[in-house]
């Protein structure tokens, strides 16, 4: 199936709906509004990309979707529906037992740190099983399942791997292990937060392909988070552009590339770095990324925006659907060239 055929997949059955999500950090020096009313949804078998500069609130949005905001952060508003159920209303025990890891999983940017250095791969895989079965299973009973899971991630020599410690594996291998663990209980949703940023260029594509293939086998919905617009639009059905804790634009990836309407999205496109570039390159957009502790009034992008007009620094523009499936938050959206 080609990507274009899936553009409307998101309009079908929704596996994840984030509605008006607000997350704040109550630090000693003040309140940080990390996520300021974010709404988006993820359809069955859809691949959704979230793109934005560093600090724009991508990771916190994803963690909030699992109700896992680190202290001193708190979700202060909104709903997160998984399979139509609002997880904000569920008990913490329920979330641990039935939601996290089981319905929705997440993999992190840095596979070097996502695995606990003090436990074997086998232990950490088995833990995921035990957490949901509510008992400590015997290694012998689950070994073949674990090995199968690793095999599916194209891991060679899987048998041996279970007794290895993370530091004995390469970065790419580790990320595959992390993904294998995340998928162990066959969740419907996988959030991949910059899954390849920390990896060697040579293995980045392979790991990404692996993630993208999950849509078909076993049939999942995936959110890929990245700084890298190029990477996102190439692989995702739909793209959400975030800035300053807000969604500035959301549309099919094709439209984002061909007809971006937000000045911010355009700026992003113009400074797409080469694949190897590190985070620092994103500041190639003139001016500093927004400081969420003291966000500018009005449109968060206005201090840096080339299109800025009157009223931009007064109030925050609404996220408006300017054509079906294409949402933009801007008083002066770019005209369709």
């Amino acid at each position, binding site marked *: 199936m080609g990507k274009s055929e899936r553009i409307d997949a998101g309009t079908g059955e929704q596996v994840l709906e984030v509605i008006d999500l607000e997350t704040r950090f109550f630090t000693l020096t003040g309140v940080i509004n990390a996520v300021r009313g974010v709404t988006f949804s993820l359809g069955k078998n859809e691949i959704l990309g979230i793109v934005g500069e560093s600090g724009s609130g991508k990771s916190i949005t994803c963690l909030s979707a699992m109700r896992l905001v680190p202290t001193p952060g708190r979700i202060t508003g909104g709903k997160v529906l998984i399979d139509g159920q609002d997880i904000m209303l569920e008990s913490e025990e329920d979330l641990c037992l039935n939601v996290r890891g089981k319905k929705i999983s997440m*993999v992190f940017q840095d596979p070097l*740190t996502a695995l606990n*250095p003090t436990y074997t791969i086998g232990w950490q895989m088995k833990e995921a099983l035990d957490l949901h079965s509510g008992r400590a299973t015997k290694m012998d009973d689950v070994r073949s399942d674990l090995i199968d899971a690793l095999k599916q991630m194209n891991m060679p020599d899987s048998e041996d791997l279970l007794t290895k410690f993370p530091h004995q594996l390469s970065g790419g291998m580790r990320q595959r292990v992390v993904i294998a663990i995340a998928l162990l209980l066959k969740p419907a949703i996988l959030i991949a937060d910059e899954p390849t940023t920390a990896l060697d260029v040579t293995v980045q594509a392979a790991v990404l392909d692996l993630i993208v293939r999950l849509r078909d086998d076993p049939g999942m919905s995936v959110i890929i988070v990245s700084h890298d617009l190029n990477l996102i639009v190439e692989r995702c059905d739909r793209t959400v552009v975030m800035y300053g804790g807000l969604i500035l634009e959301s549309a099919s990836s094709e439209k984002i590339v061909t007809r971006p309407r937000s000045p911010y999205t355009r700026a992003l496109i113009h400074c797409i770095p080469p694949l190897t570039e590190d985070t620092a390159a994103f500041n190639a957009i003139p001016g500093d990324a927004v400081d969420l502790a003291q966000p500018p009034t009005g449109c968060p992008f206005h201090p840096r925006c080339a299109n800025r007009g009157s009223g931009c620094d007064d109030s925050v523009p609404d996220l408006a659907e300017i054509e079906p499936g294409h949402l933009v938050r801007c008083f002066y959206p770019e005209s369709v060239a």
Partner: protein
Amino acid sequence: MIKYIIVRLALVVPTVFLLSVIVFATIHLVPGDPITVMFGIEGYYPEEVERIKKFYNLDKPIYWQYFVWLKQMATLDFGNSIVRGEPILPLITTRFPRTIMLTLGSMLVAIAFSVPLAMMAAKRHNTVIDVFISGISLTFISMPTFLLAVLMIMVFGVYLDILPTTTHRFASGSTWDVIKGLIMPCLSAGLVTSAGITRMLRTELVDNLHKDYVLFARTKGASDNRALVFHNLRNAVIATATLVGLELGYLMSGVIIIEIVFSYPGMGQLLLDGVTRRDYPIIQITVLIFALTFVVINFITDLLYSVLDPRIRYE
């Protein structure tokens, strides 16, 4: 690994040898000898003192005395105490376990207090609870063990009168008496020690709170507490193990004060008594045993390290 252990053990021999020379030289250089001290300010009778010194070979050159002692030690004969006139070995065998009991008991107290406190503080870091726990730790860190011990005696021994202030029942008592006798000494030494461990462990735990593997465990479905214990604490402990090893060493030396304050019949008192009475054989052996224990503690800490942290394997 085996090779590492062998090398470490082999190093103990020259260490102990060197130490024995230093101790021997030092105690003989310090003015006063057991016989003179024994007769005290009032009862010093020069001829008698010289006669007794001759009897104990204390009139011989130091190197001669050292070699005799070394020869004796080589046959594992600890010899006799000069001022007590009785064999040293039984003195050691009854007291050494008591000091170990006190040291380990104190460490147990330290850990029993510091782990939950550090976890509580880390979980609620930057809240009132955290600040409160930090405050308590700081108080204990800056409090001399001696002072805490005295306070403890005044409160539990005198005011509440629920714990014994003497150890005569402890020394020949039932298990319950032994436990009662250990409570205050272990608490005083343990609480002071726990303060340092709490602070370090709390810092480590807070540092780890946002580590990906903790968060990843949470996304796998681990509860807050499980992630804290199995993932966060497990790693924080590695960094803290060094401190615990060090603290165990400090405790060993710190128990000397504790033993004096609580009249606890352990090695520390034996050493102090030996020093004030210039009882050379006792000083030599107790110091060596303390030193050996240090070495063993260090060694065990190192080994423990490699057990705790799979990234470290001694080659």
